[in-house]
Structures are given as C-alpha cells and as structure tokens.
C-alpha cells in the first residue's frame, strides 16, 4: 500500500545509500525545513479562504467568488497584494523590536510544529517530552505579541499587547491541566505513545465524562490562547482598532495573520492528537472487522479530517459569539475553567489509578 510513510522511508534509504550519515542528516533537515515553510504557506492560504467561506455562509452571503474557480485563488491574490505593499515602520517605533516581532511569532509557531504527528510515521521530531515541549513553546508566542505591541509606540497596540499577555498567561493554566489529564491516562509525554495508546478507541470516548470536560476546556483555552473570537481582545476591532498589530502593514502584517492561522491549526492538531487519536483511525474496542475497515482510510486523512473539523468548530465560535470583556475573560478562566479542570484532573487521576477507563 502506498502511504506517505513508505515515501519517507524510501527517501531516507536512498539518501543513506548515497551520502555519509552527517550529510544525510543535514539534507533531511533542509527538506523538512522546506516542507514546513511550504506547509505554512499552504495552510495560510487554505485556512484564510476557509474562514472567509465559513463566515460568508453563516452570514447568508457568498464570500469570495471572483478570483479563480469559485474564488479559490482569492487568498493568493490577497497575499500578492500584501507582499507588494509598503512595509511601514512608524517614526516613534523601536525599529529593531518592531521588525523582529512578526518573525518571532512565526518562528514560535514553526517550533511547535516539530513534535506533531501528521500521519503514521510522519513526525519531525518524536521527542520524549513532546507534550511538555508544546506547552512550553506555545507560551512563548506571547513574547512576540508583547514585543509588537510595545515597540509600535501606539497606545492601542500597547493595550492590546497587555490584554494578550494577561490572557495567554491565564489560559495556559487550564490548557496545561487538560493536557495533563490525558498524560495521566497515558503515562507518557511522548506524542507517539499517546497516539498508540488510543489504538482501541479515542481518549475522548474512553475517558468517560472527565475526558469530555477536559476536551471542552482545552478547546476553550486554546481559542483564548490563539486570540480568536470570542477571546480576540488583543485585536478587538471595535475597541482597539486592530490591537497589537495596528501599526503593521504589508508583509509583516501578513506574517501576524499567518501566525494566527498556523497557531489555530497547531492547537487543533494537538487537540486532535490528545483527545481524538491523532492519525489513529476510529477504532472501537475489539471490533476487529470495523477497525479493519477504518484502517483503509489513510492515516493522514484521519489526522487532517479531525484537525480541520476542530478548526471549523473554532471558526464557528468566532462567527457566532460576541466578544468577552477583559475582566470577564479572566473571570471565566480563574472562577470557572481553572477550578473545573482541577477537579476534573483529580477525577481523571482516580479513574486512571483504578483503571476505570475503557
């Protein structure tokens, strides 16, 4: 059966036959780097188009439909436009930090991509502390946002950045708690282990109600962490015009935009990995026949399907709900989500120790 796994293996074998191990490692790094950049570009284009179409249909309109067949090339045209625009640096801005911030945000997004398993055998780096690595790196993205907001020397930007800081720091907690509740069940931080442990069913279904609660909390928390509506206080169009990226234009604005969508993709990929089995097809216990049928669908499709479904849910949130206020946002985290996830973690631990999960 032709699968992406076989392709990577054959490339690896072919390279090993030709070059020395050091060169092979270097070459493979370059290939992976190119793949990641390519993935970023494609994701940016696809997700922006998807968002525009989703929003359009929810708002009883058609969305982009002029450029290319059914508007599919709209985002390409937009990117070209942004690339050609002048990248303005305001006079009062801190030049270095102002120009550095968008790249920092993008680099952080790229780094989180490392331990994500895209399909069976497609994983850049199967580090043994995968989940911990993701939690650690994802909290770095706030640095980029703060940097952008402060360096712009604009009051709106500063307010947006400060909001974003408070928001990300708080929501890291419950996102982390939800991640730990799955780690408690699997007993491993390694992504591949977590996926294999869901061979006979996804954790969302195996872990009883606590798993569902922690899944919901995780989705809410990551929506907040990626600054998406209803938690888009850092941008808050009607309050702060554009928040932390008010002063950005051209390609540097595009990088922020891209980072937002890539971050959404990554957090959804992580949610899919932790709760919905990553690339693991839908397996139910010992129904061998059913499981074999499910295996015929390629693992990459499973992964992408789950991830895009979650992305759709997050977009669905955005186009339905009003924005929260900053104090309500923090209330929600500290008064509702955090206590809930703490109790939930306790329950999860009990379930795990007693072996009550399926």
């Amino acid at each position, binding site marked *: 059966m032709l699968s992406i796994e076989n392709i990577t293996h054959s490339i690896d074998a072919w390279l090993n036959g030709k070059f020395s191990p050091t060169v092979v490692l270097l070459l493979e790094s370059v290939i992976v780097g190119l793949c990641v950049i390519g993935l970023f570009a494609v994701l940016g284009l696809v997700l922006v188009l998807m968002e525009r179409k989703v929003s359009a249909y929810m*708002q009883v309109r058609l969305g982009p439909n002029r450029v290319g067949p059914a508007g599919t090339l709209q985002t390409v045209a937009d990117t070209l436009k942004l690339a050609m625009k002048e990248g303005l640096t305001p006079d009062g801005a801190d030049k270095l930090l102002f120009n550095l911030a968008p790249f920092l945000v993008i680099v952080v997004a790229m780094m989180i991509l490392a331990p994500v398993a895209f399909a069976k055998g497609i994983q850049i780096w199967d580090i043994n502390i995968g989940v911990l690595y993701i939690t650690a790196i994802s909290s770095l993205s706030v640095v980029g946002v703060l940097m952008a907001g402060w360096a712009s020397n604009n009051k709106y930007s500063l307010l947006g950045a400060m909001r974003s800081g408070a928001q990300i720091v708080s929501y890291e907690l419950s996102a982390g708690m939800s991640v730990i509740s799955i780690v408690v069940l699997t007993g491993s931080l390694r992504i591949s282990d977590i996926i294999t442990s869901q061979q006979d069913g996804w954790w969302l279904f195996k872990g009883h109600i606590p798993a569902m609660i922690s899944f919901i909390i995780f989705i809410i928390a990551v929506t907040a962490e990626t600054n998406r509506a209803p938690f888009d206080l850092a941008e808050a169009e009607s309050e702060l015009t554009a928040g932390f990226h008010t002063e950005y234009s051209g390609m540097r604005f595009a990088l922020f935009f891209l980072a937002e969508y890539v971050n959404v993709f990554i957090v959804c990929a992580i949610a899919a990995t932790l709760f919905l089995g990553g690339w693991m097809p839908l397996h139910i216990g010992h129904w061998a026949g059913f499981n074999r049928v499910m295996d015929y669908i390629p693992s990459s499709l499973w992964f992408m399907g789950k991830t895009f479904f979650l992305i759709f849910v997050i977009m*669905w949130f955005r*186009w*339905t709900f009003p924005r929260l206020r900053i104090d309500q946002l923090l209330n929600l985290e500290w008064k509702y989500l955090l206590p809930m996830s703490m109790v939930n973690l306790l329950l999860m631990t009990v379930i795990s120790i007693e072996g009550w999960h399926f």
Partner: protein
Amino acid sequence: MAFLKKYISDVLGAARSLLKGMRLTGYYFTHHKEIITQQYPDNREEMKLPERFRGEVVMLHDARNEHACTGCTACELACPNGTIKIITKFETTPEGKKKKALDTFIYHLELCTMCNLCIEACPTDAIKMAQNFEHSVYDRSKLTKKLNNPGSKIREGVE
C-alpha cells in the same frame, strides 16, 4: 450544596445559550438557499428597478424630437441645490408673435440629491426621473448634462 447546584446550573445554562446561537449559524452554514447576495455586475440584464426609482433627471422626447418644456423655470426655482439652469430664448411664432422658449436645459448631476421636487413642480410633465444609477465617470465635467436634444422643439399645443 445549594451554591454548587447554582454553579452547575449557571454553567449549563450558559452552555445552552451558546449552543442555541451556534445552532442558528450552523443552520445558515448548511442551508445555502438562504443566501440573498445578488451578483451585481453579472445580473445587470435581469435587474429591474422600480419605475419610481430616482436615478437622474431626464427630459422626455417623442419620436419627432419634440419635448414638452416651455422654459417656465418652475423646476429651477423648486430645486434646493441649484442643480438645474434653464436658458431661454425668444422664438417668433408663425403668427409673428414673440414667445419664450427653451434654449438649453442644463442639469448638474453632481449637485443633484434626487429629491424629486423638480418633477413635482413641472406643470407640463416635461422631465422625469430615470432609473439609471451607474453615474460614475472619469471626468467631472461629464456630469453636467444638457437635457434637451439638439434640434428639439416644443411639442405643439403645450403651453
């Protein structure tokens, strides 16, 4: 215990209210026949504006290139913005009498607010509102229009 009950019912009630909104947007997401967007430049042919729609002032001419404007300047007086300027001349009738007649009906589209007061004021129904609404031009001077056709005359019998 009552506190806990309230806490849980609060959370559930909140979730229900959010899901209700999501159900509505989800309905519109899946029911594309509800979309009301008109594909504007493409549907130019089918697009029908109501006959009362006020697009711009035009002067009616019949097949013999005759209009009904007597040059009485009622519309010019009725216009709040000075959109209309009427230049009259004196014509000699066959009986040898001198009679005031329209020379040029100047209409400044760029000043017009489509208030319909000139049409109301016109005693002979010589002008009316047309349904044309695509007025953009590259040169502002093109918006100053001469409404009476070249060589047109006043219709017989219109006083």
